[in-house]
């Protein structure tokens, strides 16, 4: 088995693991992690396709390599938006909880 096939199988397993995590995990942050695992697997599959297409003196087909570079940046942006959303939701809920608690204690005092 050559390196491309080996890493290709590795990518296939990573895709399965990531997909499982996205569906089964309940917490958003764990879903985001699983999304990134899955993304990594997809990019590796692109990588072995690039490797198999090595020609013209290049170590790989530059087209899928370029697609991966674009893809990694897009996946990162997605994670940034998702993480910020999770944090914001957490803070808004936290503030509401604090307010409820202080309102509650004020009632007790009154």
């Amino acid at each position, binding site marked *: 088995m050559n390196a491309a096939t080996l890493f290709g199988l590795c990518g296939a397993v990573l895709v399965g693991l990531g997909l499982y995590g996205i569906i089964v995990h309940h917490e958003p942050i764990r879903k985001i992690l699983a999304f990134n695992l899955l993304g990594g697997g997809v990019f590796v599959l692109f990588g072995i396709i690039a490797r198999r297409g090595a020609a013209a003196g290049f170590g790989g087909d530059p*087209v899928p390599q370029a697609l991966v570079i674009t893809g990694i940046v897009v996946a990162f942006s997605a994670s940034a938006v998702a993480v910020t959303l999770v944090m914001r939701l957490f803070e808004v809920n936290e503030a*509401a909880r604090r307010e409820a608690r202080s309102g509650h204690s004020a009632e007790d005092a009154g």
Partner: protein
Amino acid sequence: MTGETTAALLATTSGGYLLVLAIMLPLIGTIAIVLLGGQRAERVALVVAPLGLVIAAAILASVWSSGQPLVYIVGGWRPPLGLALRSDGISAVMIAITAIVMCATVLFARGQFRGPAPGVEGRAQMVFWSLLLAVWGALNAVFLGDDLFNLYVALELLTFGAVPLVCLDGRAETLSAALRYLLFALMGSVLYLLGVALIYGAYGTLDIVLLAGVVRSEPVIWVAVALMTVGLIAKTALFPLHLWLPNAHAGAPAAASAILSALVVKGSFFLILRLWFDVMPGQIHLPAQILGFLGAGAILLGSVLALRQARLKLLIAYSTIAQIGYLFLLFPLAVGSGIASPFASIAWTAGLLQLASHAFAKAAMFMAAGMIYEALGHDRIDRLGGAGRVVPIAVFAFAIGGLSLMGLPPSGGFSAKWMLLQASVGEGQWWWIIVITLGGLLAAGYIFRVISPTLIQPFPAPELKAVVPVSRQGVALALALFAVLLGFVPLEPWPLLQIGRTAVEAHLP
């Protein structure tokens, strides 16, 4: 198809530059807003909107009159190495629908988002206007892209433009709806991307026109297209991956809900059409039936849930799930007994008619719901009494849009559903007839549930929270009337929709 004719399909045509403008103009608008500041955003949008409409009209006119698709080879690099933009008849129609709804939304949203002081940028103001134009550019990129990876980037543009619009008000409920939407959308994107990788690995090209010539029925293409379809279904909110839609579409500001429901979900739907009809070779009966059954499930479930909602905006959002279902009936009916079947082209026309009339009607209804909310300060359906008095034009627009959803004549919705029935009979697929009829009855139920209380004048009269200008109500009415006008197109296949279809051309003698 021989290599020579394929190559001939992929050369810049005269007027091809219009496709570049259709994508870039709204995006340049987005950039201008970020640069000049949100306080000037409305003015930028008011410049971009009419220009966008003119470009859309020019594309439609050009494809229609020449009977040929418009093509632009970007940078002069021909596929497979480079990228092509291509507008066939269906793309041109989608671009036109988008331009009309976008222009209406720009007019409707004027003055809705203000900064903290005149001349000072506000958060919602900058975000709404910049992303509205971005969604426009992204949709045009989805409709015109001819390369599957370029379409992936376009889909991501669409997702990143749409998600923040959902939680513009920053409340916990809308944040949570936006997060759910984003997670579904991201899973969809990554599955789509996986399919793209497999297709490149098998055929060495991602160009749809070139792929149509080389794809064979083999495991790799089935795995790839299945993964991509699941991903796109998640983004389109087709049953059973619809769970994110209601809260997301109902939580957004009215102007944003309008484009999310009317247009954004149709971007990913359009790509499912492209994959199955333009990339896959022949024999797709089974998957087409499966997609049809999911659509039927969506029609029934969405309508029943819409009937049970207590809030108006949620009702409209659930109705979107049902109406998306109708779009998927296009698959089994257009595949039917073969590409040459007369009922296939009837199904195509019905599908596009449904898409257009739902876009206009749904945008109008969300706008109307937003104005009812502004006027009454709530959107609880059991307390809509008097709405007909305070925002009469908005309520009228809602009712007219509702006619189209129910499928009552004259309306685009009626024509679409009539032609779907015709195609079902013609193809001998009687089971869709039951679903279409039942869906129409249920729609009538949920629309009347809204209309009837608005006509009652309660005592004491409801307190008026805000005066909604007639001009904004007029925008919603105009859109609803567009949906009605579509009911006057002749009930026969539009040749326009067949222009530039690779599959059709491949089957020509």
